């Protein structure tokens, strides 16, 4: 299966957007070679601001730029882009509803070598808790590109969480992306899996394995974690025996939390949340090794599905 890194797609998308829209500005905190925002700098040096290793100032400076009609994208590793400037993102940008776009690169465990300090298992939870913040998790490079475009024209702050590694293509170039829409990637009738990011391909793999065992699994890519179309989640859940969520994030406050919130008052249906079990990340020699260590595999999704429908 063809693959591409989301961060390369992200940098390319910024350039594409910058060419069409003179108001696009990009701010970076010395990680431009990792986030790939450097591609924008090469094309549009006047609209690129290296803010030094000072994320809080970068976020508030972006607010000022937005207040003069610019559309800023700010970049850092996900853990810093959300954690080091939570207050700035909340106070000035989100309360005022400014169109500041935040890119959390190397999200989840994808910066496998650098360990817990550089990995983000809680960024979806923190960003999701800010009123009015949009939270996006692309499944592949193609969706990343479309998301960047959608973010620029979407009023209010948006957070995009992208993976450092090459991931398989799941979406088609010609397809559309709309913020807030749920995208089924595999049909099925017994169990419904809501997944995003790297876990979509694992869920599809699990579904294929389970098909051979007589269990029909539908997989939906929830690349917009917020705003979540709660009614669509409820409607989609009708008729399924159980629901499983799968994400490369803490089980607290991420996709699983969002789905549980959507179903909390209206649906009496078993729900299992698969993710990182309230633990920090750790270093490893490669990404796959970490995904196995934290139980973020097709086998883990399969086991979770079988357990919740009592077929262990």
């Amino acid at each position: 299966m063809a693959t591409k890194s989301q961060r390369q797609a992200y940098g390319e998308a910024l350039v594409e957007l910058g060419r069409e829209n003179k108001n696009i500005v990009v701010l970076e905190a010395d990680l431009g070679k990792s986030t790939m925002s450097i591609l924008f700098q090469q094309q549009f040096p006047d609209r690129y601001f290296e803010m030094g290793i000072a994320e809080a100032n970068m976020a508030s400076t972006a607010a000022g730029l937005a207040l003069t009609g610019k559309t800023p994208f700010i970049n850092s590793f996900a853990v810093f882009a959300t954690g080091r400037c939570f207050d700035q993102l909340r106070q000035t940008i989100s309360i005022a509803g400014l169109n500041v776009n935040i890119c959390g690169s190397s999200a989840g465990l994808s910066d496998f070598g650098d360990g817990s300090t550089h990995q983000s298992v809680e960024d979806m939870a923190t960003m999701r808790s800010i009123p009015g913040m949009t939270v996006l998790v692309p499944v592949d490079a193609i969706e990343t590109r479309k998301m960047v475009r959608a973010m620029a024209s979407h009023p209010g702050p948006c957070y995009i969480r992208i993976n450092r590694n090459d991931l398989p293509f799941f979406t088609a170039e010609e397809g559309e992306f709309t913020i807030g829409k749920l995208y089924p990637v595999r049909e099925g009738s017994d169990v419904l899996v809501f997944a995003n990011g790297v876990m979509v391909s694992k869920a599809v793999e699990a579904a294929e394995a389970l098909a051979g065992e007589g269990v029909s699994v539908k997989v939906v890519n929830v690349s917009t974690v917020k705003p979540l179309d709660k009614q669509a989640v409820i409607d989609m859940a009708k008729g399924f025996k159980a629901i499983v969520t799968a994400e490369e994030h803490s089980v607290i406050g991420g996709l699983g939390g969002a789905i549980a919130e959507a179903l909390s008052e209206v649906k009496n249906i078993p729900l299992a949340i698969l993710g990182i079990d309230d633990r920090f990340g750790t270093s490893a020699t490669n990404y796959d090794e970490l995904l196995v260590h934290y139980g973020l595999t097709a086998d883990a999704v399969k086991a979770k599905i079988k357990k919740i429908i009592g077929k262990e």
Partner: protein
Amino acid sequence: MAPQTTIDLLEAKALRLREHIVNDLTGVGKVGHLGGSCSSAEIVATLYFHKMKHDPKNPALPDRDRFLLSKGHAALVQYAALAEAGYFPKEEMKKVKTLGAMLQGHPDMTKTPGVEANTGSLGQGLSIACGMALGLRLDGLASKVYVLIGDGELAEGQIWEAAMAAAYYKIDNLVAIVDRNRLQATGPICERFDTNPVTPKWAAFGWETIEIDGHDIPAILGALDKADQVKGKPTVIIAETVKGKCISFAENNPAFHNGAMTPEQWETAKSDLNKLRR
């Protein structure tokens, strides 16, 4: 030197702002940031009623100058200035901080005409001002951005991140004003957490520095004009002020960082201000 008529007008405006603060925005038993609002009355009056290009009938005028209150807790003085300038009816002042009010506890651009950004989480205003100044420069506008910072607020590290960035990007359409009233919420800054020496810090970060008496209108006018001449670097005006200025019992009194007046104090405050009328 500015004409005496200008100085007289601005002194009268500063008094007017304090009267709004005492009569309309606080009053008996109503908690409000009296101290830090009164310390900056002359600075705010000079900016809104003389220095800045702005239009209360068109708050979104593209080439307006911008004012940011980084020390957002001093919102009362900004509300007084905006009401006095005609951004909204003066009756709004009586409703400050009540449910559904246009005037929130701290500046909120989504609710109050003339407020340029949401401030009050201290240390962020200078960064926002830098972003605005860069945005205006990208658009080729001659507008200036003024940001008022408290001296207690200088303890926030983000101030110095922004100070470095402003010098690095040679943001000379930016003027920071430090309202140096030497008191923070819990007491004198020098006893609680000393941010001194102030001026050499800014100078070391690459800024043009100007020291003035922040209650002296001609000095404020002179400093703002001097800042216009500075090219290739940002300017900071260190304004020595008195917290609670002109209200006898509140001057240099930490209790009036965010205090409520008794009926007697309210009468005293009104009488103090009446004596300044000419």
